[in-house]
């Protein structure tokens, strides 16, 4: 790669650091801090702080179409493994680092309740998860992506399983389905490797120019889409998600729900539009149509199921399925605005969902319950958390000035440009449904006749401890900031990246 120096740190090393720093942190904790909770927590916060700084550096370096590439050991692709981030990759890397830091600052208090004495292992596993997710965000190599996908998944299975009891069962199901997904992905990679003899994304895209469309290529795309679809829980491959999110410890739920599925969505985006599309646009059309239909089904089913839930975590899990449907819809339509909306929704939904899970964790911590009913009087007993709940829910529904509004706006523009008013109708209908179930929460929190705010809370104090409240507030603030600065993010990071800039506007994807 061209030496690409900025300041005294070689910017080309940023993507490597994004992976290596949390990985080192995880190993250090596992080696030195088992049984030493405070040291483990300090190490975790320090490493994820460095990670966030590196991600912000990547954001700056990758704005306005910048790209950072680095080939391990100087072996350039197709012989070696390369990492490569563009604006979208940097955006997702920043999402991962930001959400992770917030969750890690938040977690000591609640872990003391939910996982006494196991905190260091929890931190080590979470950092491993963060390292793997960053690896998926930065890698340019399809097989390398598989390895990071599996490292991250294994960390996620254990993080779900430490919930104990039913959580172990949920985790085993997640493991079965997740590994099947990864296997399908690997099968797709095998087909591409057989067709092109390469594993580097850009290199495969180049080689595919010479390859005629064939059954093998269709099989490759279908297997890759099924594999990543299982990991990102596109309907009807979402069966593992509600149980896994519900029974995991609160901090783990926030981390997994906020990040895991988004990074798989990023991988799907790169495979479809970075690897296959440049050479075989027409082949992608029917597959895109199927993804659109599944996305719509996920939106409708997820929203309807969310309305029926009484457990807040389960409600959030089903609303995740609906939002992953939105992302799939955008990726399936495949014109520039729809994909921009999908990418923006990865960030918006990642932040909003992590914030909501942190708030529900806070309720569990302070009130000892996370049912919709126990929200009654939340506006008085935990006013700041309730305010953050409103902001995050606004983003989930898609109301201005939050980030969710921008995401939905671009998605709707994409639907209309593609001449698909039927999809527009689905998006609007699901917005109404999500407004219904979130307004139900507001009603309980602020206007309920029942009022538990006078009840003695499980833990005294006016609100949550500051270390729990600050990450929640930061999440809510980030949602508004993203909503207000949406043009900066979209123009400088998303639309300037080659992946999206190469997509057509308008009806023909």
């Amino acid at each position, binding site marked *: 790669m061209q030496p690409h120096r900025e300041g005294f740190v070689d910017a080309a090393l940023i993507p490597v650091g994004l992976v290596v720093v949390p990985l080192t942190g995880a190993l250090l904790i596992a080696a030195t801090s088992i049984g030493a909770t405070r040291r483990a927590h300090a190490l975790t916060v320090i490493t994820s702080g460095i990670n966030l700084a590196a991600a912000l550096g990547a954001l700056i370096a990758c704005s306005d179409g910048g790209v950072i590439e680095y080939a391990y050991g100087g072996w350039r692709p197709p012989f070696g493994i390369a990492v490569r981030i563009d604006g979208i990759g940097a955006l997702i890397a920043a999402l991962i680092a930001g959400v992770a830091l917030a969750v890690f600052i938040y977690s000591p208090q609640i872990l003391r309740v939910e996982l006494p004495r196991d905190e260091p292992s929890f931190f080590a596993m979470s950092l491993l998860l963060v390292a793997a997710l960053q690896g998926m965000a930065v890698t340019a190599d399809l097989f390398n992506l598989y*390895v990071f996908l*599996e490292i991250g998944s294994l960390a996620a299975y254990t993080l779900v*399983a430490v919930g104990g009891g039913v959580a172990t069962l949920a985790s085993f199901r997640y493991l079965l389905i997740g590994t*099947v997904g990864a296997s399908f992905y*690997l*099968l797709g990679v095998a087909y591409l*490797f057989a067709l092109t003899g390469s594993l580097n994304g850009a290199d495969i895209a180049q080689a595919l120019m010479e390859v005629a469309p064939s059954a093998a290529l269709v099989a490759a795309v279908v297997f890759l889409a099924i594999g990543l679809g299982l990991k990102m829980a596109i309907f009807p491959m979402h069966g593992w998600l509600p149980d896994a999110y519900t029974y995991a410890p609160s901090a783990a739920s926030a981390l997994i729900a906020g990040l895991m599925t988004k990074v798989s969505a990023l991988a799907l985006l790169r495979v479809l539009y970075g690897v296959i599309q440049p050479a075989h646009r027409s082949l992608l059309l029917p597959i895109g149509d199927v993804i659109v239909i599944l996305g719509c089904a996920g939106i409708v089913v997820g929203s309807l199921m969310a309305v029926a839930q009484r457990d807040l975590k389960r409600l959030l899990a089903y609303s995740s399925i609906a939002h992953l449907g939105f992302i799939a819809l955008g990726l399936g339509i495949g014109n520039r605005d729809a994909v921009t909306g999908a990418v923006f929704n990865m960030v918006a939904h990642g932040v909003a969902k992590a914030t909501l899970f942190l708030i529900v964790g806070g309720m569990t911590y302070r009130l000892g319950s996370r049912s919709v009913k126990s929200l009654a009087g939340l506006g008085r007993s935990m006013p700041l958390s309730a305010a953050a709940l409103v902001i995050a829910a606004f983003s989930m529904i898609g109301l201005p000035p939050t980030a969710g509004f921008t995401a939905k706006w671009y998605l709707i523009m994409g639907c209309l440009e593609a001449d698909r008013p039927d999809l527009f109708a689905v998006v609007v209908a699901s917005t109404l449904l999500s407004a219904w179930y979130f307004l139900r929460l507001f009603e309980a929190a602020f206007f309920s006749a029942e009022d538990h705010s006078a009840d003695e809370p499980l833990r005294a104090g006016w609100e949550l401890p500051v270390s729990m409240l600050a990450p929640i507030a930061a999440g809510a603030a980030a949602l508004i900031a993203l909503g207000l600065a949406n043009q900066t993010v979209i123009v400088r990071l998303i639309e300037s990246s080659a992946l999206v800039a190469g997509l057509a506007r308008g009806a023909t994807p």
Partner: protein
Amino acid sequence: MSDLFASRFEYWMTTALIVIGFYGIVAKRNLVKQLIGLNIMQTAIILLFISMSVQPGGTVPIIDASRSGAIYMSPLPHVLMLTAIVVMVATAGVAFALLIRIHRRFGTLEEDELLERSR
């Protein structure tokens, strides 16, 4: 047809193994049997990769100047699958740990009984 079978023998074998493994995951009601199905499926994909590296009459990929024109096996799929095997072993390890936990907690690994007892 028999020609097609003979010339693409390894693909038929891996396809059969993947289908068997997938059947085990979907149809079996015992968690250990589901895990065995999963392992069969992963192994099939590993075999598929390895079979792609074969060159008829090929030899070990160590360049030997004294033998010009030698045909070499492709080393890359082997290296990749070494990693994939590690992933598979790690997955199996985590899965067994989970199964032990589940058995301790619920006293069974039959899915139907687990559904009843986890309520």
